[in-house]
């Protein structure tokens, strides 16, 4: 009986600390000046969540929660990859649009001069 109590105290404390760290990461995610700072904080929040889900395996003594941790790890990895790819594509698209605008301006200017 005492051992259950000891586990609950240890794991409850660990859960509190992990939650505080995740909230700190969320603050960084909101503050972060660039897009890569935000994606980075999302990545760290994913890591902390995987730790928390695995913690519940021991806290609730339920083996199937380990599967959920595994699936969450995969989703978190996929989220970072997709976000990086999407934002790189958006950056290139915007740059292309700017170049197009500049070309348009020079062409119109030439026509006016003629």
């Amino acid at each position, binding site marked *: 009986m005492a051992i259950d109590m000891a586990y609950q105290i240890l794991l409850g404390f660990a859960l509190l600390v992990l939650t505080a760290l995740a909230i700190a990461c969320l603050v960084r995610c909101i503050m972060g000046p660039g897009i890569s700072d935000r994606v*980075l904080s999302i990545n760290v929040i994913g890591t902390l969540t995987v730790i928390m889900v695995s913690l519940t395996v021991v806290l609730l003594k339920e083996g199937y929660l380990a599967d959920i941790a595994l699936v969450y790890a995969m989703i978190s990895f996929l989220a*970072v990859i997709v976000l990086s790819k999407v934002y790189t594509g958006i950056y290139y698209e915007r740059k292309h649009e700017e170049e197009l605008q500049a070309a348009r301006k020079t062409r119109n200017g030439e026509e006016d001069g003629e």
Partner: protein
Amino acid sequence: MMEWIRFALTAAFVLAGLVVCAIGVYGIFRFDYAVNRMHAAAVVDTMGISLCMVGFAISAPDLFSAMKIVLVIVFWWLSSPVASHMLARLEITTNEKRGENMNIHEMTLAQERLSRASEAEIEAEIKAELAGEPEKQDGEEEQA
């Protein structure tokens, strides 16, 4: 007695993992540039998660779930470098003032430019798109 030894091992590993995680999150706030922050976040991604997971695996309810927890560590160690690489590429590509914060070898920049398309191809593409547009529309846009 055996149970208490398991508990002590779990407590030692989990508390060490929490300290490492806290150091990593502190590093995210301490550094002031994204690539430096990535360095701090890698601490959480490798040492923090593995220490915590080893602690949980020691006192998991059965052997099968302990092995699954170890599988999570293996998967994370395989996927985290790939994610960091993609993130670093995003930062290098999108940050136009990157030269102020770090030294990039000119070769890297040249490779990046080549990975898009050659300069001539980009110019040809822009000309083709401009040719497709009716000319009056451009004038209207400028007036507006």
